[in-house]
């Protein structure tokens, strides 16, 4: 089997390796994150959740996935 090339990104402040041809949607699917309960930021720009399968992840991209937690 041919080895898929991987790229480094930063996801929620931590380094992660993903396949070079990944779209944001692939990443979210892998993480099994309920899309309705989160917001996603790519290099400090908020992404439209309807367009995640169009956005390709590039090397060194910074991705933040946030949700609501308890707070005052």
């Amino acid at each position, binding site marked *: 089997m041919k080895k898929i090339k991987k790229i480094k990104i930063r*996801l*929620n*402040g*931590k380094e992660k390796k993903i396949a070079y041809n990944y779209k944001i949607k692939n990443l979210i699917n892998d*993480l*099994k*994150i*309920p899309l*309705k*309960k*989160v*917001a*996603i*930021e790519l290099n*400090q720009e*908020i992404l439209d*959740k309807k367009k995640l399968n169009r956005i390709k992840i590039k090397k060194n991209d910074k991705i*933040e*996935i*946030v*949700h*609501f*937690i*308890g*707070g*005052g």
Partner: protein
Amino acid sequence: MEKDKFIIAKKKFNSRLIVGTGKYKNMSECAKAVKLSGAEIVTVAVRRVNITDKKKPLLMDFIDPKKITYLPNTAGCFNSKEALRTLRLAREIGGWKLVKLEVLGDKKNLFPEMIETLKSTEVLAKEGFKVMVYCNDDPLMAKRLENSGAKAIMPLAAPIGSGLGILNKVNIKIIRNQTKLPLIIDAGLGQASDAAIAMELGCDGVLVNTAIAKAKKPFEMALAFKNAVLAGRQSYQSGRIAKVLMGRASSPKKGII
């Protein structure tokens, strides 16, 4: 009393108590306390999803945002840029436009940084947010926030989590008299009577987190705050007697034996 609705940015609520969802032992304790408090609005924080532990419970599984209004808060933000980023993300999660702005300037006392708060209020209002603003108990600043498009003024009673109760009743009263916007005491309450005092000063609501979450019996304290807010509101609407520096007998003199 039935028609006495709590209205924020044209949205009507029955309960005038807003509760925070932080500092509880776990989510089920938080959800039960919220239920007992009768609150229809809860503040929530925006934070990173835990990528490594996917089994970690989600707040939305315990408190249904369809039944209870989530009020995203910018707690932990120390400048306008961070606060704007947080609230824009919050809006993206599910269309939340009603938000609480809290820009802190002082890590020790957690006092609000009012210049940054004012700047953020202007930007958010222009972007269509309905901004409820945590602020100092300063009537002049409260006025400026109002002029910048705030939908509710939320002065502190005392430093966040301090439990000191309302330190400057005069200023709160002055702010009350100058604004028609919802006035909500936010931060620093310690016990139920503090909430009653806030309501008696004419505030439209109170926001409580630590005083309930960290009470020895959070569920009982949630109930106590619920009752105190109701009592305080009724007392305010009933019109208190004037204060006089002398005794006035309650029983008639006529017919004394």
